[in-house]
């Protein structure tokens, strides 16, 4: 399990635009970089990030090797109702990780 830093407010007013910041520990090996033996290291990156608000996908992104190691993504969403937010990262070599956060909307 990779370490994840998720910045999601615990509560928000209805209709408020909240900012979500997500960072996950990952090498993001580009596939263009030579290793210690001079041979190019195979690519190992996170290719996909999806955020669901309840069951609805509110943000999804396709990542490429030009994204830095420990990918950081920040975006916004509207707090419509109390729900569980699900964050899912997936990528090369079967990488998959899911995190959830509960958001209370008042």
């Amino acid at each position, binding site marked *: 399990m990779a370490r994840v830093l998720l910045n999601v407010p615990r509560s928000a007013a209805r209709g408020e*635009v*909240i900012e979500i910041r997500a960072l996950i520990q990952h090498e993001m090996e*580009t596939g*263009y*970089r*030579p*290793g*210690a033996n001079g041979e190019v290291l195979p690519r190992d990156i996170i290719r996909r990030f999806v955020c669901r*608000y309840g069951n*609805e*996908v*509110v*943000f*999804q*992104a*396709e*990542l*490429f*090797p*030009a*994204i*830095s*190691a420990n*990918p*950081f*993504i*920040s*975006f*916004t*969403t*509207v707090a*419509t109702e109390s729900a569980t937010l699900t964050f899912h990262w997936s990528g090369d070599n079967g990488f998959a990780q899911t995190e959830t956060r509960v958001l209370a909307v008042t």
Partner: protein
Amino acid sequence: MSERGAPGRWMAGRRGLGGLLAVTLVRPVAAERLPLSEALRSHAGGAAIREGRVTLEIPPLVENGNTVPLLVSVESPMTEADFVRSIAVFNERNPQPNVITAQIGPRAGRARLSTRIRLATSQRIVAVAEMSDGSLWSGSAEVIVTLAACVEG
């Protein structure tokens, strides 16, 4: 793929700061490289990309190309009737032109995307936003990179 950048950096190392400045200044401006224009064309799917409405914030001079903060914001009311469907970022001189492609929608509230990227050399970064009416808008920024990422070990 970034052979054009490599000799510049090598000379910069040999000649010191004067060489670096010379190489930076001499670099041809606005000669868009093929992979970038091709990537933009395939992203647009034949539609025209107009300049404007998209703001790309990135430091103009970065010391370390391994992690460069980037903020894309698009002018849009983000209502059910008029919103940004996707934001895509492309680069000019990395081995691969794509950086990130994000799908958003009216649920985003604001059309903003922030991330950290790698840059192999000094180059232009382009962000393209697709609106709900299908129109495409772009914004770009030039970045000077002193320590490259991606290709070197």
